[in-house]
């Protein structure tokens, strides 16, 4: 059984998509970010690809809206319409519990990037790649290992390493599992 077949998860993703649609129209970056984070919890537990795909798309959209320069590129309005149509179709299919079609709707938003051209294509591709890395970092922050998260998000461990190094994940108190002195002494004993 897919995670979306659980009623509470289906309602959760539906709510996220509805809020995403409104937030896109009002250019509400914070709501988009919050919506993307909500899918991270489900993704951490279930490793479900639908939640992960939604998390990446919503986060990428938040970055696109935030940076503003997207509107200047030729082809933006066509892409934007496709995104809105994709979200609407996704909502309709998820409401109707048509899970297979829902997956296709979400996938179409990503594959729509392929039909773009010029600078906009490169720009949107980059934003989606960054979104994948950022969402991977959030899964890692939730306690999922780096190899597991990179596998799920389809990125390399090199990309994740560069990203997480700039975060405060290593400084969280719960991450401290042994004193520096003890670990250093152990390392020294190995080399003695």
């Amino acid at each position, binding site marked *: 059984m897919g995670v979306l077949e659980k009623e509470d998860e289906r309602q959760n993703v539906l709510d996220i998509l509805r809020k995403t649609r409104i937030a896109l129209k009002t250019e509400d970056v914070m709501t988009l970010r919050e919506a993307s984070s909500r899918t991270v*919890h489900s993704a951490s*537990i279930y490793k479900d690809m639908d939640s992960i795909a939604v998390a990446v798309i919503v986060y990428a959209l938040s970055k696109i809206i935030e940076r503003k320069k997207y509107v200047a590129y030729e082809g933006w309005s066509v892409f934007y319409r496709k995104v809105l149509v994709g979200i609407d179709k996704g909502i309709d299919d998820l409401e109707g519990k048509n899970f297979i079609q829902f997956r296709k709707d979400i996938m179409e938003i990503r594959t729509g990037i392929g039909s773009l051209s010029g600078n906009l294509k490169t720009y949107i591709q980059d934003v989606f790649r960054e979104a994948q890395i950022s969402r991977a970092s959030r899964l890692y922050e939730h306690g999922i290992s780096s190899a597991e998260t990179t596998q799920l998000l389809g990125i390399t461990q090199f990309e994740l*390493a560069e990203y997480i*190094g700039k975060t405060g994940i*290593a*400084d969280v108190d719960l*991450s401290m599992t*042994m004193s520096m002195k003890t670990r250093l002494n152990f390392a020294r004993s*190995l080399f003695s």
Partner: protein
Amino acid sequence: MVDANKALIFDSGAIITLALNDLLFILEPLKEAFGGEFFITPQVKSEIIDTPINSKRFALEALMIKSLVDKKILTVVSSPELKKETSRVLEMANSAYLADNERMRIIHDGEASCIALFNLINSEKKAIVVDERTTRMLCESPENLHRLYEKKLHRKIAFLEKNAEMFKSVKVIRTSELSLMAYNRGIISLSTSRSEAIRAILYAVKFKGCSISVNEIETARRIA
């Protein structure tokens, strides 16, 4: 079993941290100073060589790591026994925590294979070199990992302590400690004070993915 006088088993992240900091050169003299084996598993090799070698962004790093394997500084260990033990480790780790009665898949083949190889090495002086946080926490403080899951996921997480038992014997170091060993032996030479050099080295590995905190770095500057 794998026979070795002494052994360090490298996870992907540790090699990546060194590669991204241009510190791979320390491995050859460190191995000589160590007087034992530096192992990687086939799963780790795939993550740090076979996959990135086909990418534009990290092909150079992958090739530099490959040369360490070609020169036998890093030895790839592969056996049916390791495969079997890796499956056992994965099964135990990925069933230790339950969210909403669902098993949480928390580690992947690469990390599991490092723990598996650790279990199979017939030596008292051995450790896995792991920079990522989850595997280290699973081995050294599965209770903290449990608390982290409950805090981050905002729900009750069941923790099956007996499944985490097998990880308690696994010894972990990071590239931070390894780099300090290299610095102490003059393998890394920097024209500055000892305290500043340690700070530079440890922040460098931290910024490329080594899970070391600012507090730990400050402690290391005082005591290393």
